[in-house]
């Protein structure tokens, strides 16, 4: 029973992190039609910026996270506006561009910071123990921030003009433009929000786990899996699927071990595809 509760706690905290990443990934895909291979790169960058702020500039950690969010968002903005925007309708070209960016980013970070993991610790330490069950305090804080961010994102998307504009562009770009929505303004903004989410996740999670060049690769794989499960372009689906992935990963790893556990997740995704080819909450998919 202790194991069961422990797995559930781990699953939920994994799910919240995955949700932040997958929401950004889905946002970029849904609105721009771009598969962002650099998503893991922005996660990494978020971690390194926050680390640099703490280690070199002596900023307090919360401020460092804020700087990381702004920096990753700004880079996303610039990348979309100056490179991606030129060929935003060519899905293969945008895929290659994000891939190229990822390679450049990871090489850049490796060159600047070296190959070793950084000494980057979360300022709040320790765990709360309830009998055999424990909950690390840092995980609670990160969970709270993740959930708050998801709620804030939801408010922006569903309760503001900006969100309506973004969703309209996601639904039908040509018609949205004909209604006067400005992609030149909204696309970079959407990309920046998404990369800032990845940066935020990186700044929050890397001090809990580890920060080294290469921590971005698994991020991409997890985002893919989550988005497939949730249904492409569906933000609710991505959020829901993120928690499913987190919980399944936790339970299967606890009960079947690491490598079989990963297989369980994949098999689950395949099974879902047999019965529901559009994912949990997906709709008909636009062509690439």
């Amino acid at each position: 029973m202790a194991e069961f509760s422990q797995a559930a706690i781990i699953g939920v905290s994994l799910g919240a992190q995955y949700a932040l990443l997958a929401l950004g990934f889905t946002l970029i895909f849904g609105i721009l039609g771009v598969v962002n291979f650099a998503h893991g790169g922005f996660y990494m960058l978020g971690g390194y910026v926050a680390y640099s702020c703490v280690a070199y500039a002596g900023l307090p950690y919360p401020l460092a996270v804020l700087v990381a969010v702004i920096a990753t968002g700004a880079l996303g903005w610039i990348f979309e506006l100056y490179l991606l925007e030129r060929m935003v309708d060519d899905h293969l070209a945008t895929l290659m561009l994000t891939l190229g960016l990822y390679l450049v980013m990871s090489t850049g970070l490796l060159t600047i910071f070296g190959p070793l993991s950084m000494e980057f610790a979360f300022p709040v330490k320790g765990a709360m123990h309830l009998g055999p069950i424990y909950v690390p305090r840092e995980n609670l804080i990160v969970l709270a921030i993740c959930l708050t961010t998801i709620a804030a994102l939801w408010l922006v998307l569903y309760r503001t003009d900006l969100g309506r504009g973004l969703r309209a562009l996601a639904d039908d770009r040509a018609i949205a433009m004909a209604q006067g929505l400005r992609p030149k303004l909204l696309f970079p903004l959407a990309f920046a929000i998404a990369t800032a989410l990845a940066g935020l996740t990186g700044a929050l999670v890397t001090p809990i786990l580890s920060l080294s060049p290469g921590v971005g690769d698994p991020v991409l794989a997890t985002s893919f899996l989550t988005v497939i499960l949730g249904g492409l372009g569906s933000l609710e689906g991505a959020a829901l699927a993120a928690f499913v992935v987190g919980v399944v990963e936790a339970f299967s790893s606890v009960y079947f071990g690491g490598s079989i556990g990963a297989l369980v997740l994949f098999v689950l995704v395949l099974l879902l595809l047999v019965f529901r080819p559009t994912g949990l909450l997906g709709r008909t998919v636009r062509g690439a």
Partner: protein
Amino acid sequence: MLLQIEDLWVRYGGITALSGISIDVPEGETVLLVGANGAGKSSTINAIIGLVPTAKGRIVFGGTDLTHIPCERRARLGIGFSPEGRRVFPTMTVTDNVLSGAFGLGRKRQMEALDWLRSAFPLLVDRATQPAGQLSGGQQQIVALARAMASFPKLLLMDEPFLGLAPVWIKQISDAILQLRARGTTVLMTEQMARPALKLATSGYVMRGGEVRRSGPVDTIRDLALADEYL
């Protein structure tokens, strides 16, 4: 003249869709483009809003040459657009669909538009929170129309608003167009179903094979327009 089209050519790859048409839309009037499928009606509308590029010719709206103005800026100049096949934003609620037509106008004007449209189309109240993709064709047409009107446009473009609709919806939408006209909105609409559309229009153009065959006040084109309808 609110909208003036002079010698407009549109080409898709090797195919010429419009070969040098000229159309005038006077302020306050409802102008109808009729013709069979492939006559070039939608190409004309799409060229005005900027969804297809013009190969040659000029489109002047309220004194501004639209030729080199991108699509999204044209809408902001005061052109409302209700596209062929409705194309509402399927995942967004009815209210959000309508509000997206008034993007960036500020909260006050958006609410004003919403109140006005809701009083004109009670459907918008009944189905306010339903995703537009789940509505019937006629209901979607109302939403598309309301979305196009939400920015209080000077010119409203309507591409085949009756397409595939039951008579009860045609009636509702016709009433709405008449209301608009009463408010002084200029309308340019296309329609294959000439009969109900002719009741609404003040003047019209009959198109065939990418060219204008005849133009003038409604009465002068009625016979040709109806001949096409049964073609």
